[in-house]
């Protein structure tokens, strides 16, 4: 969780960065004390632990995954410790497979729906947090934190219970409300309803993060801006589009891209709700990679799918990095 919130914290002070005073101070600090050996290496020494952790925990598995993806590695090769290089045939097999492209398409649509719902829902809750009195804000904040702090598997288990076909409280409630045909509705029985449960779960679990960031961002907007806008006769929508959105543009950008990454690679929720079923119709890329790689014990194929998933995500991030680089040029 700590790692996940770091990039946004770097984003959040975005608006205040524009005055340029803060970064200038911190840069001139060491320079003033003279270019001693210690002070010149200090920044690198301070960076080293983080770099080392990143390299060992992220890059090393990544390199290994890539190496595996170039091999024909099934249970026989794994058990006998054989290495059979196959070049890029795992990749060409996937890129020419209809299943792979279906899954890609499904993942993209799935991510888009989730991210839109998360951003809209999170923004609205953030605005609400800003408007509430202190007691209600605390209550809502605690609720959001609890939802957010819940481990994915626990979240999924709760949703499985809620949506259980015979003993679930959702079906019970729908039945009591008069929808008697829903009394034993099987939510994991078809693609649409299974996705409905998964999306609800992911959106519910992701809103607190967006809402808190939104709220944090809103507190940085001076109240004079609102007052001025209201004097000019702006309504709620106008205030949002002319005051809030421009001030918090870096927040929206950063959070949206983070959510794209998290939703696209979300495995736990999708897998625990129905294992990618029914009939493999809710498999997204990470689940597909797991089922082909670990489930069917074709470890090379699974690695190739994982690498392709990463390439896709990297491509999706290109616009984000372009904006970031442009902003740094402007500074």
């Amino acid at each position, binding site marked *: 969780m700590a790692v996940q919130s770091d990039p946004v914290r770097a984003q959040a002070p975005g608006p205040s960065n524009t005055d340029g005073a803060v970064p200038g101070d911190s840069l001139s600090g060491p320079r003033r004390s003279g270019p001693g050996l210690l002070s010149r290496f200090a920044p690198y020494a301070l960076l080293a632990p983080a770099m080392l952790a990143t390299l060992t925990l992220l890059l090393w598995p990544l390199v290994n995954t890539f190496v595996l993806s170039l091999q024909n590695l*099934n*249970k*026989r090769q*794994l*058990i006998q410790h054989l290495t059979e290089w196959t070049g890029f045939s795992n990749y060409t097999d996937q890129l020419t497979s209809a299943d792979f492209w279906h899954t890609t398409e499904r993942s993209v649509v799935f991510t888009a729906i989730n991210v839109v719902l998360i951003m809209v829902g999170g923004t609205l809750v953030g605005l609400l947090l800003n408007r509430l009195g202190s007691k209600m804000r605390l209550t809502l904040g605690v609720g959001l934190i609890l939802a957010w702090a819940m481990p994915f598997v626990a979240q999924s288990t709760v949703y499985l219970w809620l949506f259980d076909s015979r003993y679930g409280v959702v079906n019970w409630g729908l039945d009591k409300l008069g929808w008697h045909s829903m009394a034993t509705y*099987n939510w994991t*029985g078809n693609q649409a309803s299974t996705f409905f449960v998964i999306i609800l779960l992911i959106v519910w679990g992701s809103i607190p993060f967006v809402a808190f960031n939104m709220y944090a961002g809103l507190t940085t907007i001076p109240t004079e801006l609102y007052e001025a806008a209201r004097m000019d006769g702006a309504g709620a929508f106008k205030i949002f589009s002319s005051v809030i959105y421009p001030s918090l543009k870096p927040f929206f950008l950063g959070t949206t891209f983070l959510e794209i990454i998290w939703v696209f690679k979300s495995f736990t929720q999708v897998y625990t709700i129905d294992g990618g079923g*029914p*009939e493999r119709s809710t498999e997204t890329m990470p689940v597909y990679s797991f*089922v082909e790689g670990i489930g069917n014990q074709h470890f090379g194929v699974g690695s190739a799918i994982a690498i392709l998933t990463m390439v896709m995500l990297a491509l999706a991030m290109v616009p984000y990095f372009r904006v970031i680089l442009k902003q740094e040029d402007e500074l």
Partner: protein
Amino acid sequence: MKRQLIAAVGVAAMVVGVAACSSSKSSDTASSSSSKPANYNGKTLTAWFMDGSAPQAWQDGVKADFESQFPGAKLNIQIQKWDGIGQKITTALSEGSVDVLEVGNTQTAGYAATGGLLDITKDKADLGGSDWASNLNASSVLDGKQYAAPWYFANRVVIYNKGLWTKAGISGAPKTLDEFYQDLDKLKAAGVGNPIYLPGQEWYTYFGLLAGTGGQIAKQSGSSWVGNLESPEAKAAFQTYQKLQSYSAAPKDKDEATPQQMTIFPKGDVGAMIGLGWEAPAPKDMPADNVGYFPLPGLTADKPSGVFLGGSNLAVAQASKNQDLAKGFLKIALSDKYEGMMAAAGLVPNKTSLNALATSDYAKAAIPASTNGATTPNIPAWANVENTPNPIKDFMAAALQGGDYDSLAKKYDDEITKRLAQKN
């Protein structure tokens, strides 16, 4: 306070690390001292058994006998769940972290082909293999070599709640499927929620129904194997399954293990279920005299429906550092004393001479049905079909939920064919 906590965590982590180092070191020294066979000090034989296989008394007895026959050696029995077992076995065989393991009969050929199981052809006679029933030994043999030893076999029977049946006015077990349907109708009329508990993905029962009519779930075509759900026999067997399933409120897209049907049955609203002996309720949950067994009846009274002949073999890992101990263990575990114990627990033992020991009510129902039993094709690629998501299970769920049989059968035959053709 906080700093103390951090320090404590750090110390704990270090202790775990040191312990891990020391344990790996000790296992190294154990393997290097194998030149002195008489001394088994410090050696541990790790054996994996599946959930529900070995009765506790069997485990205790085998452990005691093993540790007295090989003084100093320890037997470490670990019980594994069936769910996701394929990957666990692959990892264990690769790492050499298991010495003796139970392998399901449908998966033995697959693991034999990976080279992970020790060839025990030479030891077969010593283990008593000349008396093994040949149909039960078939799954342990690949290309003429013995890669495992048959341990026990089991087939499913109808387990029923006698109290509910009496209340519904039924006397005696049905002799034909039609009689069984009538009984289920009576149970339904008497207000029993689940006249039978049969989830939609219980493919073993479907397989049995299919095998009983001479059908095959996959057939050989030339040198390759192809899915055969499209055959008329498979369709007819499915209709029987569907009819039985229609008497159940169990989910159509789940199997018998999610939730475990043995936890549903004792609740008192289930007239019957199709299960193995170990799934019958424990006496604390339901009095034994309230539980009855009969083979799933057939179309005619002269023979019951076919059954899936499930079973397990015991194999030695190729990567095991204690292969002599492992063979010694097999000899104890497969001795008449312990095979007889398996028979008494209601399982089919590996020697027909021990069948007489199978006197439980379950065994009395199971053994007649087993004569009409069959197992999956004994080819290495079959294990691929059973990898999650199992296409047969997906097929059953889809067809039971109103899908068109023929088009689904085509789709899933293609998937089965694809998996049977996968290179190893």
